[in-house]
């Protein structure tokens, strides 16, 4: 039997991707396809006074200009615009009325025979606005921030515990710091696009860039007022999304509206600049206070966050709760407030809330270590907790201590001179910093279908997405292993709303969910095969039960006695069965007795030119504990990507808003900086063995998010160690290091 789970298997879709055979949402063609181009708002707040589309309409090849005045009917109730990941509020509706909520909001859609004509004509649409005073500066709104009641898709911070105020008063050492993270945009390389095929019967087939085809399908049906069978959404390949494709985005609605208005197939691809009107990671101001004894206990934590939301929805994540979770500490308080700005609603971005919340916590911990004259790693070991501190329960598994051990050893942490500015390399100051990372091991109900044919081929399908993470490949690996087939004999189908149920792909929950889902379904296939095998004359498995057999190398084999085996093909042929099809839903029972989390220990080396402040992150070691690793190759890529993003978060990323205009000014990837190759030196990824028999049957925890958590803090802490300067607002650009 061949093991596929846990191996370094290359992507099964890799060849299709590098040869261009893999088609993305904006690449599906059909005869008669029309092309749309968005006219975007140039103000942050107000009303559309007048739209003059006459010049655009007079261009040859222009089919129509849709605005709020002439668009096809759309639902009027907020509930129709709800979706699986929507926060509370009144969701944005493109072209619904004359109201402007944010800059880059679509105000008109030009549809033409060719994309060039659409884009040209879009430049000719004249829009007059009645402008209203706007505010886009979080710092200006911080005094107006408000606390939010728990509600749908967001929870309140954990309950405070102990008596933090008294503990702070009694603490030998107190550290208090304010940490700032700016707005960041996702910037997947694939532009957001939808191709809507208007079928002959009026049904819509929508190729959309999304992390959840069924979420988009339900949303479009509700918004357009159609029956479920009238809309099919597909997304076979996604060129990165990072959370930006969790909610249905406006290009899908606009393209569908245009298709229905024109009774014609329509494609809409947004420009990079227009994508800055989709969503973002909210800026946040965080205050953390830590109180500790000289003897090595952490006695009190207070974490207060203010984050950005829009005027029409309450986007809220659990930034502060991570602080009380991670370390042994009897007293903790949390506060989370929202500040409304005239921007679109934020959404999840890689490790939402943890990338930012843990950044602040782990910088604060470093500052506490300095105050206590303790090694930062030693501090974390002293505060180590084997129980989830927020809910006081054990973890299904927690191998963070092993992450610290293996990570620090690979990095050479024991050679660190604790004194800031103590290590030099010529003109550069050298700094070493570290941080912990934590994320949730989530799993969600999912369904998977397997069709096994007598020729030894299986097709496994689920409506989930592969947003570049390698879902196709791990689905094939799990199915091949569970069915005892060669990997090449497994075909994977995903990204189609007609396939078995899947939630959106996000939160690092799909790997665990879909793998266990496939295992469940494979179990049903095995049972069916056993039923057939038993019916064969003189069956070697006549007395076997389903639990006692396994599938390997095209055989149904007894686990007790490998000589008791029946050929799958023969069993099927004997009963005249040429295919076995099983579809099973899998749910994950969680009795609440254990916390499910992934962990990381990140060690970073920076070199900082002392005079000029130029920073190089010359080395990062990331040790990860995330349960069973399905594919060490794609998993490593995931973590490297997270570390690179962490470098960007620490040093580069910042959405620049001109608050006079309430407008993002660096809305392109030349001026919105992310790391380039030159910024990335050595990244060493270590997967710590972590067996977890509790979290789910396969022991998988997922690792899409954990790679970024802690990285920015490790780098910020390394910069402090190098320079003696503590920069608490990201990104740490060289001007912030000038003395």
């Amino acid at each position, binding site marked *: 039997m061949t093991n596929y789970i846990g191996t370094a298997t290359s992507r099964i879709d890799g060849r299709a991707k590098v040869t261009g055979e893999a088609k993305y949402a904006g690449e599906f063609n059909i005869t008669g396809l029309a092309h749309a181009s968005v006219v975007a708002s140039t103000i942050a707040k107000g009303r559309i006074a007048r739209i003059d589309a006459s010049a655009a309409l007079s261009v040859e090849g222009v089919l129509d200009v849709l605005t709020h005045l002439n668009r096809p009917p759309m639902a009027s109730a907020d509930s129709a615009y709800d979706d699986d990941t929507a926060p509370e509020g009144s969701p944005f509706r493109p072209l619904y009325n004359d109201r402007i909520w944010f800059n880059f909001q679509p105000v008109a859609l030009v549809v033409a025979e060719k994309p060039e004509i659409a884009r040209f004509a879009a430049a000719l649409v004249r829009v007059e606005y009645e402008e209203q005073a706007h505010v886009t500066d979080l710092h200006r709104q911080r005094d107006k921030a408000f606390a939010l009641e728990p509600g749908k898709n967001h929870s309140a911070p954990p309950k405070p515990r102990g008596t933090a105020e008294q503990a702070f008063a009694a603490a030998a050492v107190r550290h208090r710091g304010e940490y700032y993270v700016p707005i960041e945009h996702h910037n997947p390389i694939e532009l957001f696009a939808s191709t809507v095929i208007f079928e002959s019967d009026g049904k819509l087939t929508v190729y959309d860039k999304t992390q959840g085809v069924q979420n988009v399908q339900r949303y479009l049906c509700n918004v357009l007022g159609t029956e479920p069978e009238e809309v099919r959404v597909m997304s076979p390949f996604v060129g990165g999304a990072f959370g930006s494709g969790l909610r249905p985005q406006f290009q899908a609605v606009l393209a569908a509206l245009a298709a229905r208005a024109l009774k014609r197939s329509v494609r809409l691809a947004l420009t990079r600049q227009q994508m800055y009107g989709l969503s973002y990671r909210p800026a946040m101001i965080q205050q953390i206070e830590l109180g500790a004894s000289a003897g090595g206990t952490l006695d009190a934590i207070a974490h207060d966050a203010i984050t950005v939301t829009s005027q029409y929805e309450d986007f809220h994540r659990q930034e502060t709760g991570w602080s009380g979770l991670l370390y042994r500490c009897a007293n903790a308080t949390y506060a989370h407030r929202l500040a409304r700005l005239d921007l679109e609603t934020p959404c999840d971005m890689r490790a939402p809330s943890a990338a930012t919340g843990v950044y602040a916590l782990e910088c604060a911990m470093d500052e506490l270590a300095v105050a206590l004259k303790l090694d930062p790693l030693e501090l974390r070991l002293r505060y180590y907790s084997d129980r989830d501190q927020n809910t006081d329960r054990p973890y299904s598994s927690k191998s963070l201590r092993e992450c610290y051990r293996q990570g620090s050893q690979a990095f050479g942490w024991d050679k660190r001179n604790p004194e800031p500015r103590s290590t030099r390399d010529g003109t550069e100051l050298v700094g070493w910093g570290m941080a912990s990372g934590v994320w949730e091991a989530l799993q969600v109900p999912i369904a998977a279908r397997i069709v096994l044919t007598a020729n030894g081929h299986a097709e496994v399908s689920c409506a989930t997405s592969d947003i570049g993470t390698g879902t196709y490949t791990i689905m094939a690996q799990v199915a091949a292993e569970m069915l005892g087939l060669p990997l090449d004999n497994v075909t994977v189908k995903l990204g189609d709303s007609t396939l078995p149920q899947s939630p959106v792909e996000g939160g690092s929950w799909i790997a665990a969910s879909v793998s266990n889902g496939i295992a469940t379904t494979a179990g049903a296939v095995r049972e069916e095969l056993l039923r057939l095998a038993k019916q064969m004359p003189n069956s070697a498995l006549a007395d076997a039960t389903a639990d006692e057999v396994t599938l390997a190398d095209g055989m149904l084999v007894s686990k007790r006695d490998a000589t008791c085996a029946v050929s799958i093909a023969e069993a099927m042929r004997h009963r005249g069965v040429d295919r076995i099809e099983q579809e099973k839903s899998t749910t994950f029972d969680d009795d609440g007795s254990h916390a499910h989390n992934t962990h990381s220990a990140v060690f970073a080396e920076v070199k900082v030119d002392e005079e000029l402040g130029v920073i190089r992150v010359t080395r990062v070691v990331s040790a990860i504990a995330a349960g069973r690793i399905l594919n060490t190759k794609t998993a490593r890529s995931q973590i490297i990507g997270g570390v690179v993003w962490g470098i960007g978060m620490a040093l580069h990323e910042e959405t620049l808003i*001109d608050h006079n205009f309430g407008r993002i000014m660096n809305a392109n990837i030349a001026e919105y900086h992310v790391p380039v190759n030159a910024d990335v030196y050595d990244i060493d990824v270590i997967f710590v063995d972590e067996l977890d028999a509790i979290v789910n049957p396969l022991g998988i925890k997922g690792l899409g998010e954990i790679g970024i958590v802690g990285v920015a803090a490790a780098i910020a802490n390394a910069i402090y160690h190098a320079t003696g300067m503590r920069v608490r607002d990201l990104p740490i650009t060289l001007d912030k290091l000038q003395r």
Partner: protein
Amino acid sequence: MINFQYVRATDVADAVHRIAADPAATFIAGGSNLIDLMKYDVERPSRLIDITRLPLKSVEETADGGLRIGALVSNSDLAYHPLIAARYPLLASAILAGASAQLRNMASTGGNLLQRTRCYYFYDTATPCNKREPGSGCSAISGLNRMHAILGTSEACIATHPSDMCVALAALDARVHAAGPAGARTIAFSDFHRLPENTPERDTNLQPNEIVTAVELPARGFAANYTYLKIRDRLSYAFALVSVAAALELQGDTIIEARLALGGVAHKPWRDPTAEAALREQAPSQATFNRAADVFLRDAKAFGHNAFKINLAHRAIVRALIQAAAGTPQSQSDKKIR
């Protein structure tokens, strides 16, 4: 993006004739800046006159020991040209500090001279910008100006010239050859780019009906003591916050000739004869370099976000001069600053 016509020029005379016939037309060579600007509706040419087939692609030695670089020599070809690498390594280094390999393959010598500012507001037609729309106002002065100029600014414009190559050309005292309806002429590099004053819409003194045909380098190449030091927000593929082209000629322990040009600080590559004079006849030392930097930046003025640039420029000048004097120029591939 606005529709346009496309024509191909057959020779320089044809190009000049075509541009004279249509004042709203523009030349296109590599297009690495122009196409972006057209997509953003900032440039709206009626017609693109493609000059990529003109015979301006050679690098030739001149009678006085210099080089004449055709306007269509790509940035990549120029950076790796053996004569440039051997005699003008400052120019090669500056080119390799800019953009990416792909862009340098497309970008031409003449086009590099004519690239436009990266000021956010210039690129966004939703905001006022005097350079894009004269008289509409400067949004950067009271807005996001971290990237903006500290020298030679005006109330109308605080944009910077984005080129790296031009900073080296300024330091090397290059001359620009242009052709127009009245014939050919030569423009000293320091006279080529303009300060914004009240006409920020004009970046250069090239007339609208003229075409750049070549850039000429004088014999003096400073191949022994030079550096191009570029300070930016990431280690590659970002415009300069401050860049310094420094070139020295030493005789024993005395600087007999000094060139100092800065990028990222002004509407044009910025040179200062007084600062260079402060280096001449001096021994290379930290004190000498500090004095020169003081002089260079004596009129520097910041606008808020870019206040750090004055101090940064000072330190970068000193560092660059140390590198140049020591004969240890900054590598553009090893990102550690020497």
